[in-house]
């Protein structure tokens, strides 16, 4: 296994200036400059170091349980009349893809000599994955979480606390992921020397989007190898992933961006409907602007105030999208679809009954689009099952009636 740090350069990956096409960059206040500059100067060198790579791979294997299976979903395939494979990120330790990134970043933080870790979280998956690696390495951990999300993802709050993290409610704005991210950035401004900020998605100032994408790229690295074993070819016809900030999609797409005949499908949260006023479908509702120090597409009013998004799934409840995805969208390289709250709940129930797998509500958004893709029987389709649904049981049960 190789995390693809040296080799991969694609026109869809970040350029030398930190941009994907027109998107990306680092729109940071001066207070963050030394930290971000330090990362920018050092991240490639650190993650290219063979000793780093070895430690990263070892932990992914023995601690996270990688490679995650690529599972041929027989009954789901029969239903949608195609060859559907599920990339089982839900089977990772801590239950989602998020841990691939936190393992990478905690090793990086240690090499930078940082003593304290901060993170934001929406669904709580990234918070749990961060609290986990902090426990593993014995570092102090503070997780910012919107007070609305603290309510709807209670099991993950309890897990973070059990893992020794301090969970700080973000009470400004919409009290969800966007605001938790603001609070984490403010913490970093106030603690510029000893603290590393583990961002949970491919968002934020350069180099975060690229760094997180590289740690997550293990997903598509494995998919290629596993598809060769199962189908004789490394490339599928479709890769489908849900997009909040876009880290599981970035990881699932990473090694396929240049294989133009692989259709990349990004699924955003439509909430109650794209035009309902309660949505998080950024590519459809957003315009170029700056959110969390990155130039990208974001949902905003005509005078540039960031709009409060809505999704039943806390992990997709974000008014922006990573700059890599903004570029994949505007160049047409990826197809951007969206799934409503109701479609996603239905897809979650369907996978549970057909395959015995309860998916995270985020991942259920990706599954919900299988019906809309006019698949052919010979099509090889990989769905990134980014996480498991334990954390969402209450929401699922509430909507069962």
């Amino acid at each position: 296994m190789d995390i693809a740090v040296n080799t991969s350069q694609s026109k869809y990956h970040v350029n030398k200036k930190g941009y994907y096409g027109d998107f990306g960059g680092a729109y940071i206040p001066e207070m963050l400059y030394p930290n971000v500059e330090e990362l920018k100067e050092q991240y490639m060198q650190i993650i290219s170091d063979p000793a780093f790579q070895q430690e990263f791979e070892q932990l992914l294997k023995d601690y996270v349980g990688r490679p995650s299976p690529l599972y041929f979903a027989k009954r789901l395939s029969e239903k949608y009349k195609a060859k559907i494979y599920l990339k089982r990120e839900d089977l990772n330790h801590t239950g989602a893809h998020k841990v691939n990134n936190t393992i990478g970043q905690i090793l990086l933080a240690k090499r930078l000599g940082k003593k304290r870790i901060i993170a934001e979280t929406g669904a709580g998956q990234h918070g749990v994955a961060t609290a986990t690696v902090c426990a593993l390495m014995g570092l102090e951990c503070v997780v910012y979480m919107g007070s609305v999300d603290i309510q709807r993802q209670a099991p993950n709050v309890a897990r973070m606390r059990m893992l020794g993290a301090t969970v700080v409610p973000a009470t400004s704005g919409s009290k969800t992921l966007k605001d938790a991210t603001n609070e984490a950035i403010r913490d970093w401004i106030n603690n510029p020397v000893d603290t590393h900020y583990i961002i949970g998605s491919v968002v934020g100032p350069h180099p975060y989007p690229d760094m997180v994408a590289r740690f997550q790229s293990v997903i598509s690295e494995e998919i290629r190898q596993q598809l060769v074993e199962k189908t004789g070819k490394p490339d599928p016809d479709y890769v489908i992933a849900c997009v909040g900030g876009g880290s599981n999609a970035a990881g699932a797409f990473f090694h396929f961006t240049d294989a133009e005949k692989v259709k990349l499908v990004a699924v955003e949260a439509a909430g109650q409907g794209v035009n309902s006023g309660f949505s998080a479908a950024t590519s459809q509702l957003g315009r170029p602007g700056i959110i969390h120090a990155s130039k990208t597409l974001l949902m905003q009013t005509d005078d540039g105030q960031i709009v409060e998004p809505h999704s039943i799934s806390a992990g997709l409840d974000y008014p922006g999208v990573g700059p890599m995805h903004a570029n994949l969208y505007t160049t047409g390289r990826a197809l951007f679809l969206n799934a409503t709250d109701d479609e996603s709940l239905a897809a979650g129930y369907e996978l549970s009954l057909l395959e015995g797998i309860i998916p995270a509500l985020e991942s259920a958004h990706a599954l919900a689009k299988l019906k809309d893709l006019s698949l052919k029987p010979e099509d090889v389709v990989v769905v990134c099952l980014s996480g498991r649904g334990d954390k969402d049981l209450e929401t699922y049960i509430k909507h069962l009636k």
Partner: protein
Amino acid sequence: MNRIDQLFQNKPKDILNVYCTAGYPSLNDTVTIVEALEQSGADMVELGMPFSDPLADGPVIQESSTRAIKNGMRISVLFEQLKGLRDKVSLPIILMGYMNPVMQFGVENFLRKCAETGVDGLILPDLPMDEYESEYKGLFEKYGLHNIFLVTPETSEARIRKIDGVSNGFVYAVSSSSTTGKNKEMGDQEVYFQRLKAMNLRNPILIGFGIRDNKTFREACRHSNGAIIGSAFVKAIENSANLQATVKEFVAGIKTNMNR
């Protein structure tokens, strides 16, 4: 000559620059406050253009921004309010804000409006210096506007020199590594202030963040050309029944015992 340069020429020390969020506490208070500040003896005013997600700001300025947006403040409204203000006040006016609303307004359009309404300078904390130099510096000069950059205790000497070279008006020295409104003790920053002073920058220096009363103002003035007060002023006017009186009292309180 730009009013900011004129001010420093006439008064090289003890400059008092007061920040308030435009459209706060009520939408139409902006002009009243600027006038009251000038009459009370403030030297410069910094008007915040409220943003929904002000990353560099602490709770006080965040809340004032939320309230100002609710009141209906937006950049186009602010320019309407500033029309005619130059007939009434002569102190330098700086607009402070985040890049996204400025981008949506259109950067050149924004700068032109600034020049038309008599704004003298801008503080856009999330505009990177490189991008300013490559994309916008020419436009700022075309409209006679100063762009003011921040330096912090963590900024390297080489970068401070570079920032000083690109800045006009003054260099904004953030007193401690923090968001606005944090009251860290000033004593700890002595070394940093001395270091800045010893660098003999081409621009004057104003110290901001955490300046809140007569003591901290005097302390800042000892090390620089003056100071910027934000959160403390925003808090002071929050529930004011008589803005003129509150502003006057606030400024007088800050400026007592200045040994000149």
